[in-house]
Every structure is written in C-alpha cells, then in structure tokens.
C-alpha cells in the first residue's frame, strides 16, 4: 500500500479496512444493495444525490456543524487540527466523534487532509446557515463593508442579523403602499442583499460572517440535555397495562359493532361522519376517540374494506384470529400495527387548505415517513433507562438536534407520543416494557413485555338481583360471544357489566335459544346463584315469545282472483313449482321466483314477476368479512438494516471486484475484440485443462456486472465451475453471462486472450 495520500475518494476507500467499509455499509445501507462490484462502483454510488441527502439527514446538529466548517474552508482539503481552532467551544471528543461519523459515512474523506466530495457540497445548501458568496450571488458588495453596515438604521440591521442566524434566505415582505419600501427593500437597493427570485432574498456569506464576528459558524450546537423524569418502572408498566387493556377492549367493541352494522365506505375513501358519530355514541367515547380506534383497528389489519360490493368497512379475517389470542398478543398486534402504520391518525378532523376536514381512514392521511418518525422518537426514549422519560417538547427538541435536516417532519411527534400513551407504549413520556419490546423485536417483544401485566380472561360472570351480569375481567371469547346475544353491555373496561333485559332475552330466543337453554347457560356461567328475578324474566319473555310466526319462502304467487289461484294450485302441471297456500290470495313456494315463473308459463299461465321492494332479505349465514391485507406487507418502507454477515459479504464482494480490477490492469491482458463464443469456450477449456486462473467479466442473474478472478475446475454443459479465491467460494458461472474473459498468468506475464462476449 502506498504511503502517499490517496488522490480520490475511490482510492481512499481502497485504503479503508474491512471493518471500516463494513461500518460505511452499515451507516449507508442504500449503497450496498445490490452489492457494488468494486470500489469505483461504490464511490459512484456514494455520490448519488439521494444517497448523500439520506446520509446527511441522519446526522445530528453537532456533526453537521463540523461538516460546515470543512465545506466553508476556502480551499478543498482541511487538516483535522484546523477544526479545533475553527470551533473552539466544541469539546474535542465531540469533534472526534463528529469526524468519525463523517468519514465513516464517506461524507468527508482523507486521513491527514479532509476532503468533502462535491455531491456533499451540493447537498448542503447553506453551510452553517450562511448564504452563498457575493460573487456567486452576482452581487457587488461595498468596498468598506463594516462602514456600510454601520450606516444602517436599526430596522435594517435587524433584518440582516436575522438573516445571519439560522437561515440566510428570507421572504421579501409585500411592498408597502407609501413607496419608501421596507427595510429589506432598502437593503436590496444598497446591494447588501441579493434577490434570488420574486419572493426571496439571500444574505451574502461575507456579511453573514461579518455579523457573526468571532463565531463564524454560529454558536456551538451542543446536544440538549433535557431533565429526565424517572418513575418506578413497575408503576409505569402497570399504567401502561391499564392503557393496553383499555385499547384492546375498545377495539374489540368497535369491531363487534362493525360486525353488526358495517360502516359505509365513502366515495373519497374513509368512514363518514355519520358512522363515526354512531360508533362514538355506541362506544360512549368522543368522536375523535372513535376516529382513533378506527385508525388503530385498520393499522393493525383488523378492519378493512369488504362486503359484497366492496363498499363497507368490515372486520377482517385477521380479527377472528385476533380475538382468540390472549390479551398480550392482541395488544402486540395493535401496537405493532400502529408503529409501522403509514397513516397519521392525528390528522383526522384537521381541515385542509380547502377547509375540508379529513375523515377517519381517508386515504389523504397516508404519510410514508410516519413509521420512521415514530421509531426515531421512541428510539430516543429507548436509550433511557427503564422508567425514565421525557416530556413531549423536550423530546422534540432533542429530535430536532439529532436530525436537524428533518426538523420539518417533526410536527406530528407530539400527537404520535399521545397515541403511544393511549396504547400503553408510553406512560408520561417513559417507555413501558412492552413498548421497549415492541421497538426491539416487534410484535413478539411487545407481547412479552406486556404479558403477566394483563389479567387472565375469566370464564364466569356474577349474576345480580338487579338483572346485571358482571364479568369481573376480560372474558374468554366464547362466553363474550354468547353474552353479547343474551345481554346488553352497560359498561366496559377492566370488567364488563351486562344487563339482561326483556329485549335481550327476546333476542336470544329469536336466534333459537329456548328458555331452558337460557336457564342452563345462566346457571353455568354465573358463579353466584341465579337470582329469582332473572329466571322469572326469562320465563316471562319466553311465554310471550313466538306468538307470531315467521318463516322464509323463496317466492310467492299472489292474485286478487282467488279462483285463479285455486286453479293454479289444483293444476297438475304446476306441481313442480311446489306451491302451497299461505293465506287467501297468496301462494308460496320454496323455489326461486325464476323457477316458479318458468313452471307457470310452461303450464300456460301468464304470470308476471314482481319487484321485491319491501321484502326483507335475510343476512347471509356467514359473518361478513373483508379480505384484509397481510399485516406488515404494505408498510415498513424503511430499509431493513443490513446484518453483520450481509455487510461482510458485500465488503468481500467489493474487495474481490477490486482485486479483479487490479489484476486486469496489472497483468496486461490482451484484448481481442470480436471473438465468438466458440473462442471464449476455447479459452475457458484451455484454462480448465492447464489450471490457469481466468479473469471473468460476468453479469449475474440480477443484471449487475462484476469482475472476478476464478480458478476454473470444470466446463460442462455451458457452465463453468470454479473457485473464486477472493470471495472464498465455489461458484458456477453460466457461459452465456460471461462478458469477457482473459487468462491470468501467475507470474505476471500477459495471458493469452481477452474476449468480449
């Protein structure tokens, strides 16, 4: 390895150790997919503006300030020592850390002299919050700048000082009517500000530096050290469990309601205000709360659009599985759904610019950045010890410092934290154990963290003389189902209070229960003796039940001419229609109207079909379900972090490619253009025969090209088998994917032929 300083980024990358390259890939995983073939490819990937922006976005304010210093240096290249003098107030370890972060990410490169790659320069628009140089703004500054500034009125100076702060660009206020112009306009006239478009002006760097005096890079951007409130982790967990219990209970109730009566799908998507109101009323919660529950159920994949015409919001099939799970798992599904949901439930009811307020589940609420914001906010809290928490505003300030370039995305953070608190992920700013588990290992971790804190489902109720049935805890699904038929829910929460009423008993009888079934059920379900009043109620209602009879038929035949009907009934030819008389003037059949019509027509009658207007359709026997999505497929747009092994593999790949590149250069392979596949084969078989390593240009099945040096073993059926020493693996290469080939002479002498494929 040469002792000279590398001249380019690629050259510098080549000098980095495997660990350092691996760290680079870990910090910028986007450049590793698909694996770059060699350092040159890697360097060009690193220069992609999107990648640079993404890398910069993840840097904290202190690190960005260090970068600013390098970017503002008059010439490219700056010794690390100079940084210390440039930022005297910044502690050395912060500087070292920042430099390390920047070089690890290849946002700065060089060991003795730091260079900033051009794409990075372009990506940082206003380094240190300073404008461009006057030359670049095509501005002629006064010769004696300090004197010119001294002449300014206080208002004008105030404008300049504001622009010398965080942002050198400002809006030009609307021209006032009196003609003298605003301070900003006067400054424009004096040539102290540059106009960059119709609305905005920019402060030239020189003036900014002058105004900043001895802190040209602005005040040191230290990490905020918010006061951390510490609470007993057990108390936090218990309260979180309270919230969890509440959320799971409410979602269950909501979906049970939607099962009974689905909410309509608006044409614009989402749930209408009327349904929202209905649900809020039935759940005894406020309308915004109902919206939140709808959003949560959707995020967890328990609610989706379905129904015969795909115009209803229905519980999904996942709901059937969910309700059978234990409480901790149910909670975990909700929490995980929320964490990775791409919607912002807090925007429900917020009016857009047109004054239209957003409906729950409206497609307008999708924000793809939401999951990463949630994770970064909660991630800050996860770094604190158990029980320690931050108030929302402190957390936001910290996030702003951590990712200043994403500060504009932080607006939903307070609402997200409030949601986390409702779910039980957070309790007054501190993560619960379940919340930690959720962040660390997703659904399973969340469930594990919450398990043991949530009550076990109970399988009994307490029947009371006032006809209430009290379930002293969450009910097992089966009993809950039955009870929802036999009784009405009066209050829910930790326990459920059911009320048996005449109407509810009648409902049970309607779905086929008998009085003795009910007595048996109550006796079995109740841990207390069934009160006499309850038995009497059941008997009273049962006695009255069934005096009116209802049956179902497929079709009817009616006529005002009773004689004609008798004739039809007596006609042997109409026997296939299976008609019977229900009442004078009405015949009914178990067959469909079409069939009856056909039979009657064939028998020579002239029947007409009748519109079923007013006929009550029975619901299909199966409970309606939306198909639903598979949870976790749609969301999570954030890149999955690379594992250590994956990174090692990529580094190996790059190194191998690099070595191949070097081999190709150093060993002067002769290139023979226009050679056919036949000669490629000839060359390869020679290599196999003589055991000479070959240099291969190869395009893999994914279409990415690479160069490698292979020790060939066999050439059979269009496939070359060989050992790739640098990658340390045996590989099979399809001959038709080989783009070029050359023999590599061990002793450095030129090989035989180079054949582009």
């Amino acid at each position, binding site marked *: 390895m040469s002792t000279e300083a590398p001249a380019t980024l690629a050259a510098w990358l080549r000098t980095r150790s495997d660990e350092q390259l691996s760290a680079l890939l870990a910090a910028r995983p986007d450049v590793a997919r698909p694996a770059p073939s060699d350092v040159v490819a890697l360097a060009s990937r690193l220069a992609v503006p999107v990648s640079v922006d993404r890398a910069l976005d993840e840097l904290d304010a202190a690190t960005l300030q260090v970068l600013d210093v390098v970017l503002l240096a008059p010439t490219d290249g700056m010794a690390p020592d100079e940084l210390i003098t440039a930022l005297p107030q910044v502690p050395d370890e912060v500087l070292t850390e920042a430099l390390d972060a920047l070089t690890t990410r290849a946002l700065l490169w060089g060991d003795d002299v730091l260079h900033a790659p051009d794409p990075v320069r372009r990506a940082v628009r206003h380094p240190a919050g300073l404008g461009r140089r006057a030359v670049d703004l095509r501005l002629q500054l006064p010769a004696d700048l300090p004197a010119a500034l001294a002449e300014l009125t206080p208002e004008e100076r105030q404008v300049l000082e504001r622009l010398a702060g965080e942002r050198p660009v400002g809006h030009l206020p609307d021209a006032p009517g009196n003609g003298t112009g605003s301070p900003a306009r006067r400054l424009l006239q004096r040539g102290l500000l540059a106009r960059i478009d119709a609305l905005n002006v920019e402060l030239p760097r020189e003036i900014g530096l002058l105004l900043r005096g001895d802190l040209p890079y602005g005040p040191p951007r230290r990490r905020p050290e918010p006061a951390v409130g510490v609470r007993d982790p057990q108390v936090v967990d*218990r309260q979180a469990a309270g*919230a969890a219990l509440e959320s799971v209970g*409410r979602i269950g109730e909501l979906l049970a309601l939607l099962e009974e009566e689905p909410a309509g799908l608006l044409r614009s998507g989402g749930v209408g205000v009327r349904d929202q109101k209905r649900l809020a009323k039935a759940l*005894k919660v406020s309308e915004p709360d109902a919206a939140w529950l709808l959003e949560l159920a959707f995020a967890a994949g328990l609610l989706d659009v379905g129904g015969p015409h795909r115009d209803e919001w229905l519980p999904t099939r996942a709901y059937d599985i969910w309700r059978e799970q234990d409480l901790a798992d149910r909670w975990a599904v909700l929490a995980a759904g929320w964490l990775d949901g791409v919607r912002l439930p807090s925007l429900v009811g917020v009016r857009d610019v047109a004054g239209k307020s957003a409906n729950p589940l409206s497609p307008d609420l999708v924000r793809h950045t939401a999951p990463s914001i949630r994770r970064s906010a909660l991630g800050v809290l996860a770094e604190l010890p158990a029980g320690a928490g931050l108030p929302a505003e402190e957390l936001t300030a910290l996030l702003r410092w951590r990712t200043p370039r994403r500060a504009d995305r932080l607006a939903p953070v307070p609402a997200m934290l409030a949601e986390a608190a409702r779910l039980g992920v957070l309790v007054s700013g501190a993560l619960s154990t379940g919340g930690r588990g959720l962040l660390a290992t997703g659904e399973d971790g969340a469930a594990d963290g919450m398990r043991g*804190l949530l009550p076990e489902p109970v399988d009994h109720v307490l029947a009371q003389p006032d006809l209430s049935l009290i379930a002293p*805890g969450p009910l097992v699904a089966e009993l809950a189902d039955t009870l929802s038929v036999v009784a009405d829910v009066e209050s829910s929460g*930790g326990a459920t*209070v059911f009320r048996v009423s005449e109407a509810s008993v009648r409902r049970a009888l309607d779905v086929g229960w008998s009085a003795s079934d009910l007595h048996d059920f109550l006796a079995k379900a109740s841990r207390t003796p069934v009160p006499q009043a309850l038995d009497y109620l059941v008997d*009273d209602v049962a006695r009255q039940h069934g005096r009116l009879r209802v049956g179902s038929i497929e079709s009817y035949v009616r006529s005002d001419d009773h004689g004609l009907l008798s004739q039809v009934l007596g006609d042997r030819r109409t026997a296939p229609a299976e008609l019977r008389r229900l009442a004078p003037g009405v015949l009914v059949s178990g067959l469909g109207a079409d069939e009856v019509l056909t039979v009657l027509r064939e028998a020579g009658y002239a029947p007409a079909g009748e519109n079923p207007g007013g006929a009550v359709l029975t619901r299909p026997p199966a409970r309606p379900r939306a198909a639903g999505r598979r949870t976790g497929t749609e969301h999570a747009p954030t890149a999955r972090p690379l594992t250590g092994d994956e990174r090692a593999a990529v580094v190996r790949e790059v190194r191998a490619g690099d070595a191949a590149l070097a081999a190709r250069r150093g060993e002067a392979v002769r290139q023979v253009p226009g050679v056919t596949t036949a000669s490629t084969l000839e060359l390869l078989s020679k290599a196999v025969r003589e055991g000479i390593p070959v240099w291969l240009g190869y395009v893999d099945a994914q279409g990415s090209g690479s160069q490698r040096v292979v020790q060939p073993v066999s050439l059979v059926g269009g496939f070359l088998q060989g050992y790739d020493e640098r990658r340390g693996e045996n590989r099979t290469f399809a001959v038709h994917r080989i783009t070029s080939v050359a023999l590599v002479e061990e002793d450095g002498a030129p090989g035989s032929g180079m054949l582009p494929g």
Partner: protein
Amino acid sequence: MNDGPLIVQSDKTLLLEVDHPLARECRAAIAPFAELERSPEHVHTYRVTPLALWNARAAGHDAEQVVDALVRYSRYPVPHALLVDVADTMDRFGRLTLANNPVHGLVLTSTDRAVLEEVVRSKKVAPMLGARIDADTVVVHPSERGRLKQALLKVGWPAEDLAGYVDGQAHPIFLDQAGWQLRDYQQEAVEGFWAGGSGVVVLPCGAGKTLVGAAAMAEAKATTLILVTNTVSGRQWKRELIARTTLTEDEIGEYSGERKEIRPVTIATYQVITTRRKGEYRHLDLFDAQDWGLIVYDEVHLLPAPIFRLTADLQSRRRLGLTATLVREDGREDDVFSLIGPKRYDAPWKDIEAQGYIAPAECIEVRVALDDEERMTYAVAEPEERYRIAATAHSKLPVIRRVLERHPEEQKLVIGAYLDQLEELGTALDAPVIQGSTTNREREKLFDAFRAGEIKTLVVSKVANFSIDLPEAAVAVQVSGTFGSRQEEAQRLGRVLRPKADGRQAHFYTVVSRDTLDSEYAAHRQRFLAEQGYAYTIVDADDLAGPGEVNGPDWVDEPAD
C-alpha cells in the same frame, strides 16, 4: 397483578366486589369521591363524576388521594389517561375562590390567571362581575353570588365559596337530649355540615334527618327558616323540634296555606313559597322577614325550580340540605351543588341498616293473574288506559286481603295511586282512606289512631309518599304507582324502614298484574330496589302462603284476644 376489590371501568364507574376482604376499607377510601349508584348483592357500582370529584375536593380531599385509592384497590391496571383526567377535573375546583375583601366586598380571586381570563371573557359570567381590581381579582356584585357560582360550574370552573356567612339574628336553641342521644352518624353529619358552612347531608329515609336539622340549628343558635314539602311534614318537624330541643311551641311558626306565622323558627312549605298570583311570587318577603341565620331545605331532591332561583339570592345565609338521594329526576344536581352546597355527608342505606337504625326489609312481588274478562278489557284498551286497567284490576283484591292476613298483628299500609281503587279497597278491607282531599285535621286524627294501634290498616294515596311519620308501619302493600318512578318506590319503602320497637323485620309487598304494563313498571321499580341492595322475591298469588303455612311468614304472633 394486584388482587384488589375494585374494578375501574372506562366510563369512570367503579365496581366494588362486596365479599372481598378489603371491600369495607376500599369503600371508605372511594366514598368521598364516588357516588354510590347501585348496591345489589355482590358488586356495588360507584360513579366518579365531576361533581363527585368536586364534592371530594370541597371536603378537603386532593387528587393524589383519589388516584392513590383507585390504584391501590384496583384489581386491574388503571388506564393512565383516566387518572390524569381525574386529577385534571379535581384541579379545576378551587382555582377560583369567592372571598370577602375588606375594601371591595365580595371578590372572585384566582390562583391561575389564565382561568380568570377565561371566565371573565365568558359571555355567561361577565355580566355578574364588576371592576377588575388586579390581575388576580375581580369584584362580584354581592347579589350575584349564587348565580355566579351556577354559571362558573356550567363553564367547568366551580368556585370555592369562602366568602362566609352572616350570623343572623341569634336565638338560643339547644338539643334536649333527655332519654335519647344523637347517633354517631348524625353527629358526624352535623359536624361535616358545620365545618363546610353550607351543603347537603345525604341520609336514607328513616335515618333521622330531622334530628340532623335540629342539631344543626342548635349549632347555629340563630333564627332558622325550614322549608318542607308539605304541611303534614311541617307539623311533624314542629313536633320533633319541640320534643328534641329547648324550643317551645310559641317559638315555632308555621307558614303554610292555612297559617302565616313568622317566629324565630319558621317552617314553610315549598308550595306556599312558590305560589304565584298575577305572575308574582307573593311570599318572597318571608325570606327577608327575619335575619335568618340558617335555612334548612328538607328533601332537597324535590326542591322546585323557583326555590333554586330564590336560593341564589340567599348565598350569605348558611344552608343545610337534607335528602335521601342526590339523584334528581330532572338532572339539576349541579344546581344543588352550586346553590345549596357540596355534599357534606352521606352513608349508604345498608350500612345504617346494619347498625340497626333502620329496619331490615323484605320485598316481595306478588303476581296476580288477571281473569279472562280483565285480560280482554286490557287487550283492547287504549294505550294510555292500559296501566290503570292493569293496576286496578279486581283480581288484586283477594290477594291483597290474603297478604294483609299474613300479618294480623302488624300496622299495615296499603298504598295506591288511583282514588276509586283506594275507596274500593277501603270499603272492602274496612280500613280508613287518606287521600288528597282528606283534611289535615282528619289526617292527623287517623295517623294518631294508627300510631296508637287503634287502627291496624290504613289505605293511603300518594299524598303519603312524602314526609309523614308512621313509626309503627311494618307492612306496606303497594297496589298501584306512578309509572314506575324510582323515587316513589324509595319513599314508599321508607314508610316501613323506621326502626321497629322490637327490631322486627319490615315487609314491603307489591301486588302486580302478570303480563301487563303493571309488571313492566314493577320490574323497573324493583330494579331500583335491587340496586339498593334489597333482594326481592317474586311469588305467584296462588303460592302465597298464609301465616304458619309452608313458606309463610317466619314468625306468627299469637292472635290478639
């Protein structure tokens, strides 16, 4: 997981499992801030309302205690949001205080400027306020003290009234505790009231509310105005005051339709005060006739709306409300809170019953099958007539007679709502009837005879629902009622709950026609009884056993003579 007796519900109701070993302790902890809503056999329901929380706050409890009680006794984790909400609500009380300023008179002061700004800007509140003295203080027109408190409660910032009371004209009143003694809970109730200045004492019927009133008067030692529901009740107050205090007959005046006496202690009926002639209240002078030191409101839950308006002007007088329940069927609990005052004391029925101060009661519903003719009449009747037809069915008569025969030696009341039915019963049972048109003299005569045991059975209309004292009524038979009113049920039950000399059980029968509206209404009323913890039994009329028979009453006295 904690194994407490309490389950906290999302709607802020609290379920208390009574059989739990910690139940008593828990009840004591939550009683200050939660209203007992239902107390059936196994699980009692309490409700945490803003008013209840403010009552607790007024009684000196803080949010921390409330939250602690909820968390400590709760079986399941309590949602943090609920606790925060409780703390926030409690925190609203006392941000504003009404106080007397030596220079400016009555002022509204605040510890929180934002709150003061909010209420000063409120359209409803602003007209009652005068000049702003400083950032935290604003003058209140003294005449608006009551209305201001009402309005502040409506905007969610209830004010604590520390402006004090006028002493009123002193008048010596002492309890005359010869041969009797104020019970512990009565003593606590008086102390609670006196310490708070004004407010409401909640005690079950028959628990001796009159004595709490008397004791409060003895504490105030000032001229007192007592507002009662009707004349009979007023006379009873008078009798009780003469017996239990040093007051003599001459010192107590009756201000009613019949007499208009104003004495150091004056008992007035709601009716006479709210009588209007030509759209004007004629008897408002009463309130200014004396420099009253104490105003007692009997049966606060029945307080008519005009009295609220008048009470708003009396905020500088001490006010004591007495009631069996804070629940008003018109939902004006908040006016009771702001105008009479916060709850100062309450005790659940069952606890007082357990202490032996009110008689235990057995509630029995007797079901009568209508005969065919009655069933047909019922079936074809107009909807508005149906209840009357079912309730007054003749088939009930033999059953009522049989019920009365079960208790030959008891003092019995037959209570109904329909006058012709009552007349008929009176004749059939050979018992005197008391109804609206019965003169007060006649009533008192009959009541005295009943008390003395000369009359065993009385048939009474709903005039007897309130505030008459029939100490030895041990059996009540309800034959018809007012559309299932819960309040009526409670009052009627109260008739038999006064402690019996020998601690016997009281019996409360309801005779209903089966499969009619009557039984539907009965079910509604009984739910109330069950919620109050009275287990009731349903018996078919045919199964109703007489004394001494199987399933008959537990004890049978030797027949008289």
